């Protein structure tokens, strides 16, 4: 109970302080301290990218401690007000200068090896189980399961879209997954290597799901590729956004991916193909479905 009392005291004190200070402290206190770092992600690559991120972050932290330590020491120790006398002869030292040139070179070389190794893996597009073509439009995504006769558009969900209008009066906090929800989710199987082929119809977009560790530009006239393999046990829903300024509604074309177990995915795919068959008038559609559907079941 004494804790509550203290809190009330603190609050009274803050109320006396200027509003901005109060708002600042309040929002720091309420901030989500778990969301400070890059997420580790759920794919083979995202974990490697995360560990590279942590490696370079720690290199920077160690360097910062050393460099800032020396600076702070100098500021405290060599103050004129404390009677410090300048040593005017200290203007050059080849030995020291060689040391602080060689150390960054060594760090560079030390970093280059894991960077190169990870990059080579990122660029390895072999042994793919499923190809999905992603096309960016102003302002929505189109997903096409290549060879599966399944394709659809994915746009911002209506409740988010209503709330995000200027002066809508709808509290974004009342909308579930505000700005990160779409009408048609992309669905992919867990544990399989999926290749995304990225392109765009009008301007440049970028397809990014942070939990997958990668983003790449979708450029008109280009086909870019990335591959994603979600861990078999990481079934779930993952969200991302367009990451390249693409005009007025750039902030409003999210990405939502449902990762299903391979069995559930095949069930979903067959349902989609059946829907498509009903809608299609093209006579050769069933043949395509029959010959290519089992391919995704392999592995």
């Amino acid at each position, binding site marked *: 109970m004494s804790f509550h009392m203290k809190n009330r005291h603190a609050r009274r004190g803050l109320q006396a302080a200027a509003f901005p200070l109060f708002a*600042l402290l309040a*929002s*720091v206190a309420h901030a989500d301290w778990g969301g*400070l*770092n890059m*997420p580790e992600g759920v794919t083979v690559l995202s974990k*490697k990218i995360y560990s590279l*991120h942590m490696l*370079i*972050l720690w290199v*920077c932290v160690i360097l*910062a401690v050393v*460099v*800032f330590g*020396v*600076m702070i020491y*100098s500021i405290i120790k*060599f*103050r004129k*007000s404390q009677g*410090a*006398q*300048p*040593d*005017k002869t*200290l*203007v*050059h*030292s080849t030995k*020291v*200068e060689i040391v*602080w040139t060689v150390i*960054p*070179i060594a760090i*560079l070389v030390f970093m*280059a090896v894991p960077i190169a190794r990870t*990059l080579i893996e*990122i660029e390895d597009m072999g042994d793919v189980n499923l190809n999905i073509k992603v096309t960016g439009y102003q302002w929505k995504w189109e997903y096409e399961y290549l060879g599966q006769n399944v394709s659809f558009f994915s746009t911002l969900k209506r409740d988010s879209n209503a709330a995000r209008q*200027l002066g809508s009066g709808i509290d974004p*906090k009342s909308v579930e997954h505000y*700005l*990160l929800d779409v009408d048609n989710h992309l669905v992919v199987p867990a544990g399989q290597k999926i290749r995304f082929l990225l392109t765009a119809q009008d*301007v*440049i977009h970028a397809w*990014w799901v942070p939990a997958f560790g*990668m*983003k*790449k530009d979708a*450029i008109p006239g*280009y086909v*870019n590729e990335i591959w994603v393999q979600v861990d078999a046990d990481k079934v779930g829903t993952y969200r991302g*956004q367009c*990451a*390249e*300024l693409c*005009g*007025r*509604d*750039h*902030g409003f074309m999210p990405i939502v991916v449902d990762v299903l177990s391979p069995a559930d995915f095949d069930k979903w795919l067959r349902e989609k193909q059946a829907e498509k068959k009903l809608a299609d008038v093209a006579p050769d559609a069933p043949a395509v479905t029959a010959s290519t559907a089992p391919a995704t079941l392999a592995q």
Partner: protein
Amino acid sequence: MAHEHTADHDHVHGEHDHGPAHGWRRWVYATNHKDIGTMYLIFACTMFFVGGLMAMIIRAELFKPGLQLVDPQFFNSMTSMHALVMIFGAVMPAWTGLANWMIPMQVGAPDMALPRLNNFSFWILPFAFTLLLSSLFVPGGGPAGGWTMYPPLSLQAGDSLPLTIFAIHLMGASSILGSINVVVTIMNMRAPGVGLLNMSLFCWTWLITAYLLIATMPVLAGAVTMLLTDHFFGTSFFSAAGGGDPVMFQHIFWFFGHPEVYILILPAFGIVSEVIPTFSRKPLFGYDAMVYATAAIAFLSFIVWAHHMFTVGMPLAGQLFFTLSTMMISIPTGVKVFNWTATMWKGSLSFETPMLFALSFLFLFTIGGFSGLMLAVVPADFQYHDTYFVVAHFHYVLVPGAVFAIMAGVYYWLPKWTGHMYDEKLGKLHFWLSTIFVNVLFFPQHFLGLAGMPRRIPDYSTQFADWNMVSSIGAFGFGLSQLLFPYIIWKCVKAGQRAEARSWEGAHGLEWELTSPPPYHSWSDPPSREVIAKGAQH
């Protein structure tokens, strides 16, 4: 002693000094380096507040989730214009203004080498920015495709496109002319005895910056001209449908854009290299290494451009080359940071406002350097790219980097320019408010970026709400505290304690051998060798 000498000097040659013309003619027909420098600095300060107002609009909209204030299109034009105004209108003219004021005084010259060109290069700017800012009021609104103007998006602009492009042409012309003037002045107007390897580091960094400008501004002009012909004359440089290549624009743009980053920061290195030795009462550590490091950074800046566009889909070899060359920049930059630290080592430090800003630069620019090192790691960059992590990174190197160095320079030389000391108490207040709020403003943006918030979005998912609010509060605090800056300068121009010729105890350099304020034609007679020797103790 320095005092006696300069007073003497002034007396003997006083009659040669015809003062400035009166009224508007002094400014419109200005050929004097100090008058032109003053106009550049006033212009830069004005644009700093115009761009700052845009930043306030951006941060006000981002204060909480949901769209409360502006349309997304207007928001996009605010982010685009904020960058163009701050880069081309605030920071670059501030550097040229400082160059105009200080280079003739530091090399022992009476004025810049090309005074009429100097007038022209300044007076282009108000026209360029009238064009740029007027684009906000034409059909379709201001440029909203980002300051990087990537096609095809930038080609969707309305009438703002030609206005923006012509404004950029004019700014480029102004920068090139200003740079030619700097190069010619430093190469030809140094007083006998002022050698290249004993001139001030501010002159050195500006000399290298001038070459970067001359090399890259035409590249930008070419890129935007191709945009213009794509839009109006049916060419297809950047249109895939016409056989062109939208990614080629990005390569050309960043071939300009990366050296541009160093154009914004190299003169800052120069100022910090003057201020830290002065207030450490000790010569700069490793002068030669500083010069070579500056040159190395300038060279490397031409071979790292593609690190701005790792996500466009480059061959593996290209990604490896650009990641390695980018990391190499940390070597000369590290040398600089270590040299500044070593300058303070065993010094006798005091903490007047210029030194405080220089120290803040030292710490916060280094933080920006660290995040830069992280961004160079390509696989991790696939996550960082186009997020608030990048926004945090470049604002750390540009605000507490370039802008704080400009402020350090202004406080450092104000007594020299005006003959008055500024109000030290207010200066320190300005410093502490700026340093605290700049961190409240930009540090949380690292977290936002890592947590997955893309840049250039007017509204965001609720998970990003807390840190955006913190960042916005920092922005309002930072913006408001900058109002102190022109007030302190104004107060100092009007009145203040008389400044001595050598306004700071530890100051060295030829400018401190002149009176405060200096004579209208700085060194109408070149300084004698003993004066140079006294000034040249770096």
